[in-house]
């Protein structure tokens, strides 16, 4: 049994296995003093935050604030200069992206990174990569539905079909994703990440470029994923209404440095956040 007990903050997470031993007092996910610079540019500067299991945690900030860079650091695409990242008590940094995926962290991309020459089914099937046991030889000798590779394909395609059901992608199941509308591609990316059965899902602007109807659907699914699948979600988003609507807690950053952290209400009212988004009120000399 794994239980999440809330401490003073909502983020102290205690994992108890069958009441016998307290396995770890570490929070579910923790970023500590993360910093990275590209040449002279400080892209991230002392970013720290913690996420409790089952939470939706959002990171907001103006363009170029370093949000996607943060994701790339967590994923292992970039090597940060300093800092630590912990997931379920294990260090994340220094691992290659495929190792990070193996830990149970999946992500989507801001600029869609789908496999354009595969259909929707196969794209999501790639999310099952870590679960499929078909190797080179079993794959090459797939002689029928009763063969090892055949059984694996059937088993995992059934799983993928559940995701297609959940995300309402039946209409595009066998279509190549390259030619599909932008909003649909975003949903397929979400599906692919879900196929990994992640415990932590990193969503990089899931609603960017969507119309309001698609946005509503996406918000609904994200909540669904949190509620029903119990996935913890770390989210980057520009759409303030959406962020305020679904996030449990928010971290605002600007120019790579944290501004404030807290509940949506707190963050919304914080003067520095307003300043970062709306600009500063300048004292213009001749104003009446």
């Amino acid at each position, binding site marked *: 049994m794994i239980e999440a007990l809330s401490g003073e903050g909502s983020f102290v997470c205690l994992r108890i296995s069958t009441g016998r031993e307290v396995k770890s007092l570490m929070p579910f996910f923790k970023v500590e003093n993360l910093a990275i610079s590209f040449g002279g540019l400080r892209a991230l500067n002392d970013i720290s935050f913690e996420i409790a299991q089952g939470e939706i945690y959002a990171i907001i900030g103006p363009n170029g604030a370093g949000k996607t860079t943060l994701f790339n650091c967590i*994923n292992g*695409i970039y090597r940060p200069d300093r800092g630590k990242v912990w997931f379920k008590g294990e260090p994340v940094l220094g691992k*290659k*992206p*495929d190792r*990070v*995926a*193996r830990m149970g962290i*999946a*992500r989507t*991309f801001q600029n869609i*990174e*789908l*496999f*354009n*020459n*595969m259909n929707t*089914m*196969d794209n999501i*099937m*790639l*999310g099952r*990569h*870590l679960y*499929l046991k*078909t*190797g*080179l030889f*079993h*794959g*090459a*000798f*797939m002689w029928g*539905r009763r063969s090892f*590779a*055949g059984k*694996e*394909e*059937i088993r995992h*395609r*059934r799983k993928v*079909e559940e995701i297609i059901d959940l995300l309402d992608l*039946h209409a595009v199941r066998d279509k190549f994703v390259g030619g599909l509308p932008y909003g649909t591609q975003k949903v397929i990316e979400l599906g*692919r*990440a879900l196929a*990994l059965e992640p415990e932590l899902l990193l969503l990089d602007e899931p609603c960017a470029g969507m119309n309001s109807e698609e946005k509503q659907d996406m918000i609904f699914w994200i909540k669904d994923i949190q509620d029903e699948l119990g996935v913890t979600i770390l989210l980057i988003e520009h759409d303030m209404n959406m962020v305020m609507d679904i996030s449990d807690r928010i971290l605002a950053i600007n120019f790579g440095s944290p501004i404030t952290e807290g509940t949506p209400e707190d963050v919304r009212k914080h003067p520095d956040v307003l300043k970062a988004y709306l600009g500063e009120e300048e004292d213009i000399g001749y104003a009446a």
Partner: protein
Amino acid sequence: MDMKRNYYEDVQLFRSGVVVFWFVLFMAALAVFPLVAKNYYVYVVNYICINIIVVLGLNILVGYTGQISLGHAGFFAIGAYGTIILMTKAHLPFIIALPLGGLVAAVFGFLVGIPALRLEGPYLAIATLGFGLTVTQVIGRTDFFGGRQGLHAPPLTIGPWHLNTDKEFYYLLITLTVLLTLAARNLIKTKVGRAFIAIRDADIAAETMGVNLVFYKTLAFAVSAFYAGVGGGLYAFVLRFIEPEVFNLFMSVMFLAMVVVGGLGSIMGSIAGATLLAWLDLQLRNIVAIPYLGEWLETFSKTYMTLTGMSNIQFIVFGLIMVLIMVFEPLGIFGMWIRTKIYWKTWPF
């Protein structure tokens, strides 16, 4: 939605009885072919089969994984020499020596794949080109491999069968070609093939989904080299005699041309491309035999080019066909096939 969806359908080889019918008919035709055809045509089909095997492997690397290799003649040579040496020096039977020869090539493929992890596009092309050239140089200067004199293929026996004529060898080649085609096709439809395609389309996304880039890129090289190695091992018995000069740069380029002309990232395209170019390669050597046109070409060549100019013309025609295919259908023969299919689906509208 039908609730009893059959998920195997997605990866099934034969989706309908019609396809099975045509496949069986095609196989039957292949089985009867040497009984009715002249020896030369059997030799042509053998030559085509070997090209198909190599091109399938090269397409896995170039078409599906998005890496490039200009050194496939090197793997081809390693397979050919490996198989013969394992048979003559280690006295292994052909049936073991051939896959072992392929595996030796695969090991070299793996080794070439390691630097390929850091190289892309033109850089990788030059690195593999260097490999291909090195292989023939090393073989040509080592007495153990027969040096410049080359090696003779030993007589070929599998169990009770002696396969020493083109017609006898034909059945072995067809069987292996069909098996290796099915294997390549299955590979592409399952986990490993999906990982290959994912690396080609979006490598960072593939990595964050758990695909180990180092493993799968080197694996693509190894699989591709294995196919080339097996092709080489078989080619040694078609030629009966191998020497280093056979496995030159032109051969590597031809393999790549077959992949591109057939269609990048397509199994059927690999077969079509290898068949067309290998056939043209052989046919255009007798270009004079073509009625009227052959004569005219010969006079043209002798008047405006060198006196022995037939070989000029044959390469010019060859090149012209390749250029035309690329100009009119960048997706190669496979692209034409898809277009025709779509056209007839909506015909006559």
